[in-house]
């Protein structure tokens, strides 16, 4: 679980207009180039995060209960407390830092991309030019100097907030209550339990899956445990079958060649 005084960001989908000021601010502060993309039938652009896009707004649309919906949600690193990227990294280059922030030590990273495969949010990416991975830093260089993250600073509608984890959690809970009182019965907070609790919390109006957010995530450690257990059983069963097959025929097999 995140600690009360950890750094945190709150994204409130009920205030977001999809203007993407945050997306641009992130590029500017972090000196990230634009990407040449092609229209693929949605205002969502670029179509995914990359080593040069650490934050983008995800646009979802369709029909729900005979009503058209068009929703926006944040797509960036969640700064997980049990982060799959951290646990999968063989070198420890991507790791938890002060205040629960997850960042990459680019002088130690070897570019094996195991973290890229492991992150359930597709939030960490390999840079061909640099040979290492990069992602959202939660603006560590700003927040550790008392400034707000660039994306939060730029938001014109009040959909983004930053502060300590305890403050953001409280703000999320208060907002949830007033949304429920206003009749949004499906409103919910996302990130309280995902991946051990994330340092970026979302207030959503509908079920997270309608925004394309993953639900029912399992932690890296339980995937690893299942994997080793299965491999152990496989080795026992298949190994035994092979050895038995050969030893039954040992005289024939071992006899000559």
């Amino acid at each position, binding site marked *: 679980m995140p600690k009360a005084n950890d750094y945190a960001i709150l994204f409130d989908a009920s205030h977001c207009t999809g203007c993407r000021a945050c997306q641009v601010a992130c590029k500017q502060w972090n000196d990230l180039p634009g990407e040449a*993309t092609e229209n693929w039938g949605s205002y969502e652009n670029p*179509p*995914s995060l*990359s*080593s040069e896009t650490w934050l983008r707004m995800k646009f979802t649309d369709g029909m729900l209960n005979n009503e058209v919906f068009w929703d926006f949600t944040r797509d960036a690193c969640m700064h997980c407390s049990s982060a*799959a990227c951290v*646990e*999968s*990294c*063989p*070198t*420890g*280059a991507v790791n938890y830092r002060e205040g629960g922030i997850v960042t990459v030590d680019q002088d*130690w*990273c*070897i*570019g*094996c*991309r*195991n973290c*890229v*495969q*492991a*992150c*359930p949010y*597709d939030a960490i*990416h*390999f*840079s*061909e030019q*640099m*040979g*290492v*991975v990069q992602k959202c830093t939660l603006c560590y260089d700003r927040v550790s100097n008392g400034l707000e993250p660039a994306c939060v600073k730029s938001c014109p509608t009040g959909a983004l907030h930053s502060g300590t984890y305890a403050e953001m959690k409280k703000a999320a809970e208060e907002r949830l209550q007033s949304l429920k009182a206003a009749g949004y019965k499906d409103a919910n907070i996302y990130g309280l339990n995902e991946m051990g609790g994330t340092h970026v919390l979302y207030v959503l109006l509908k079920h997270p899956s309608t925004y394309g957010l993953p639900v029912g995530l399992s932690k890296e*450690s339980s*995937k*690893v445990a*299942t*994997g*080793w*257990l*299965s*491999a*152990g059983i*496989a*080795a026992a069963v*298949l*190994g035994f*079958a*092979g050895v038995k*097959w*050969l*030893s039954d*025929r040992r005289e*024939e*097999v*071992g*006899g*000559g*060649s």
Partner: protein
Amino acid sequence: MKGGAWGIYIALYFWLAAMGGGAFLISLSLKDRGTKVLGAWLALIGIVAGALLLIADLGEPMRFWHLLAGIHPVSVMWLGSVVLALSGIGLFWLIISKEWPDWLVWTTAILVLLVVGYTGVLLMATARPFWSGSPLLPWIFLASAYTTGSALLVLFGSHSEKLAKLSFAFAVIEILLVAAHMIWTYSGAKDAITAAISGNLAWAFWGFVVVGVLIPLYMEAQKKALALAALLVLLGGFLLRYFIVYAGQVDVMRF
């Protein structure tokens, strides 16, 4: 590859390490020393070649030593790197020893088994539904290590007929496991499975099924050209790794 997907080097590495490792493990249950030494050589070559491919695939190959120096036991890849290095030492030791003490044979065998098995765990511990959706990848990789390992020994002319039989028996187990894995993961990994069955990976998947399993089985039944059948089994082992590695990433290899 854009976006940093795992590609051909990784598929080749899985294939070589498992093929050599499988040959060593199988040679251990045989009687004659010559085959055992051959098995140890094949495993060492497979593991060294695999490790070099792994390093060449890194974004910063000169930092390869961080793989061990990072000391991060919760990471499957860190553990894999350790067993890879230790198994290489064990095999080398066996090759230069006249006597094979039991403890050394056992330790090396377990390390080699871990090298083969960890590759399956590595893929399972990801966010890719086709790899993590079922617990069967370690089974498939182990079965395939036996299939390709015994076929490799056959190619080197050792105990051809019996080992060819073993190889084909494991090929049948392997293809059943692959079918079970695809059914098991289908609900979460439709794109991957469609790509394998009828999309741009169909050549690798059907190549594995037909060229890597069905044709060799037919040749075995006809008692024809065992060496050629064994060669096809090896090719099938590569196609299997190729389609599994790429199919797992079809959703993310987008731009």
